[in-house]
């Protein structure tokens, strides 16, 4: 029975450890709204918004 309880504790610890990286990844994704007050033409937004997101993701050295 003691062995069983020990295994359950280990299981709980493993579950906790498994969850931890997920929590860390999601932490900076809080809905923080910062308005830069910049005017961007609708045309530019339509043409480049997706590309900009991709570029930023692909170049973490400079973004």
């Amino acid at each position, binding site marked *: 029975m003691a*062995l*069983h309880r020990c*295994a*359950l504790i*280990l*299981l709980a610890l*493993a*579950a906790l*450890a*498994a969850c931890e*990286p*997920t929590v860390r*990844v999601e932490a*900076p994704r*809080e809905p*923080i709204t*910062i308005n*830069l*007050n*910049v*005017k*961007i*033409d609708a*045309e*530019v*937004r339509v*043409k*480049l*918004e997706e*590309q*900009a*997101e991709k*570029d*930023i*993701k692909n*170049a*973490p*050295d*400079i*973004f």
Partner: protein
Amino acid sequence: MRRTFSEPRPGMRWLAGLLVAFAVLVGALVAGSGPASAQERALDSYRASGVIAERFDGYVEIRAPAAPIAPAEARALVEEVNAKRRALYTRRAEESDVAVEQVGKLFATKIVETAPVGTFFLQPGGDYVRK
């Protein structure tokens, strides 16, 4: 009645299998995050600590109040990052036939989302807002 470790009950074996599965999952999650380059780490740490600020025009700068204490490494990093960003913005502007200043500002609105918490952002009016 005594049990020995050499003859585990079926229930215990099931638990052991579950533990192994968890270990594999944890390993995969850690490995999946991938290694960050030294420059990426430096940029993120200078931004989080407020030495390097993001600007509304899509470039970085040494944040004015931090200027007297900013290390040479941070100044060099600002130059390098801005040169690379300028090259990218120019390319995207030419491809899409839009003004390069507009491209920089569009990127700035996206950088707001991805920059680390603690980063300062310079607004057009000259004020800094901290994430």
